[in-house]
């Protein structure tokens, strides 16, 4: 009924954040139901155009939060494909449904007690070794993360490599939805990134040094001075502050060291 009759002529898009644009309408099937939407819209905006008010399946709208995992199929193709609704542009006749939540297994652990020994990861996620290296996870990843390579690295105990390879993971769970071995890759990767960041990468000594100086009250007096300073004096201090050049290396030092 309505969809087709209502939208014969080009119409403005759904979204307030856009000025009105006009575009050709194309059919899409949201959970099997046909709607006509302007081409060029993302799946998310197309759903809103169709009249959906999203509660689940919508988060940052910018491809970083992983809330809007979506599965779709195109006509004449048996293959199920996955994408983020906020990133993927609609295509004519695509059949789609969102996967806003995925009940994947996440191990609970006490981080303070964990070491960088890979065996601890193996103990928390024994299903890691169910991976058959089919690469479905990598194919599913909307971020282009080499998911299977990261899993393989982890199987070999290479925590650093697994952490680095998985850094772009947005935890949408699409890899898990396609995994033959029932792995929750994104939860495992979260664990190894934390182990890597806290146990393998050296701590910043200068940071510890600064924290100590602050705790000893080294800056209390100069901050009190600033808190009491008049606006005009602050402006002078501000305008005269020495600016570290953009191109300066790590060894750059300011001339004025009174407030360091």
């Amino acid at each position, binding site marked *: 009924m*309505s969809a087709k009759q209502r939208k014969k002529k080009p*119409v*403005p*898009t*759904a*979204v*307030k*954040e*856009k*000025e009105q*644009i006009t575009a050709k309408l194309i059919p899409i099937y949201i959970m099997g139901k046909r709607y006509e939407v302007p081409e*060029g819209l993302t799946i998310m905006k197309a759903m*809103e155009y*169709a*009249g959906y*008010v999203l*509660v689940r399946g*919508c*988060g*940052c*709208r*910018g*491809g970083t*939060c992983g*809330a809007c995992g979506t599965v779709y199929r195109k006509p004449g193709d048996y293959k199920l494909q996955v994408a983020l609704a906020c990133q993927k542009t609609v295509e004519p006749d695509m059949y789609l449904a969102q996967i806003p939540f995925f009940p994947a297994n*996440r191990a*609970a652990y006490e*981080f303070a007690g964990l070491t960088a020994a890979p065996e601890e990861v193996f103990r928390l996620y024994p299903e890691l070794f169910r991976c058959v290296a089919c690469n479905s996870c990598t194919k599913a990843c909307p971020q282009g993360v080499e998911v299977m390579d990261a899993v393989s690295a982890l199987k070999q105990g290479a925590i650093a490599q697994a952490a680095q390879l998985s850094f*772009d993971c947005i935890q949408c769970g699409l890899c898990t939805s396609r995994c033959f071995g029932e792995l929750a890759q994104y939860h495992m990767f*979260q664990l190894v*990134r*934390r*182990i*890597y*960041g*806290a*146990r393998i*990468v*050296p701590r*910043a000594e200068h*940071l510890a040094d*600064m*924290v100590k*100086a*602050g705790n000893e009250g080294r*800056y209390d007096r100069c*901050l009190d001075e*600033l808190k009491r300073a008049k606006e005009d004096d*602050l*402006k002078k201090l*501000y*305008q005269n*502050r*020495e600016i*570290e050049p*953009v191109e*300066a290396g*790590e060894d750059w*030092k300011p001339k004025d060291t009174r407030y*360091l």
Partner: protein
Amino acid sequence: MSYLGYPDFFKPYIKKVEETRPARLEKRRKGEEFPFMSLQQREEMLKYHPDYKEEGRREIRVGPSKGYRVAHEFVDLLEAKSRVDPNKVDLSRIDYETDVLVIGGGGAATVAALIAEENGAQVLMATKLRHGDANTMMAEGGIQAAVKREKDSPYYHYLDVLGGGHFKNDPDIVAAFVKQAPDALQWLESLGVMFSKFPDGRLDAMHGGGTCRKRMHYCADLSGMEIMRTVRDEARNRKNIKVLEFCPAVELILNEHGQCAGAVLYNMETKEYLVARAKAVILATGGSGRLHIQGFMTTNHYGATADGIVLGYRAGVPLSFMHTVQYHPTGVVFPEQIEGWLITERFRTEGADVLNVHGEKFVNEREPRDVESARFIKECLDGKGVPTPTGKVGIWLDSPMLDILHGEGRVRTAFVGKWKVYDRLGIDISRAPMLVNPTLHYQNGGLKDNAECETVVPGLYVSGEVTGGLHGENRLMGNSLMDIVVFGRIAGRNAAIFAREEAREGELTLKHVKAYHKELKEAGVTTDRIAPILLPDYTTPEVKEKQLTVS
């Protein structure tokens, strides 16, 4: 046909950028900068900023900041009724009981929950979307802290914060912030946040707009996401932190002693209103970009609808610095699919020029955000913006310079998130520039609190974007991620202590909501508006006119 992935329409304009590029690169290499504006020049330039458009705001007629002029979109929410009839909520039927109730699910809320739990409290987090669906997740640039003693100190961080905020910031809050920032950074390091570091563990850092020292630390171009997912992971390990998703708070509950003692929650899926009783409450609901102030596009996540402002204000907390809103200078104008999308300031701090239609520089690319945005708007008003085939106008951000300055592949590795999204749209931003313009980014002001995150309501703590004072009239890059960590920790600790030592048993009440309704009526506000709105409404008028269910 296309040129470097852009429609042919842009070809002559991109050519101009390419023509001027070698000379601009030469200047970069010599360290020649486009001159920064003086404070006076900045002030002049700010007249072009949307905050300075008087027709964009009006006085609030009710509440603790009555008479304060803020954006119409905020006033509309403050001059609105509660979502529930306060007489109908049965406060004797408690659905959830906890020591500390944390409202919100982003960085500030999660950090606060962790620290409250560490201080012995049972914590309940009530969040509107999923845990972690928040602007924190989207922050890309980095996190500021003065941590290299040989060249930087909290003193300089303080001056930078004030300069950015027009010297109007709350001095106590700023001092607490710069002083505790290093410790907060170390805490994140201990939780396993993967900061970009040198092989010896030394933190890599760069400038942000308005910084005098390179103190912006980062995690590739996904700093906020890395911090958010790490603290969320830690929260998930804590047995005494429970999370209720899709259950936003719609009113605060006070008790007969005037203490904040819980909130009315709304299950967005079953549409039930539920009562959560707590001994202390932390409001950390974030910002408001989805109000689309003055019709601007936004970088904010879906739930950024100023809920906390409405709740806190009705309970008696005044507003602070709500007259200013931050427009990030570099939101995408074209291609349409990613319009409004944030392009991190780091492109500019690494040396990408901003250019007008003639391929000329017209501003230093590292002015504070409000000044930079105002300058962009002026350039476009002067007819020197780059037109788009969709009838808009923008400014070039010359990203390909970074590959030339820092080595082939720099854009692709240091800005992998951006590169990928553009690549999907057929544009290689290590070869072609990006077209940008200001986009609604951050709520500079918010609920008034002090350096201890206390409000005028005992037992009600606030932290993060929902507060006002730290950033004054304009926030600097890298200070929001640090804001949520420093003040999330303070709020968490103080709320736990309050719950243990000061909270009193007493009858729960929504009297403040009834009084607010009365005040609206007396002020002559007649409206059907209800607030908080919880989600923006992007339904088309065509659909709306057929949604005829009687209400």
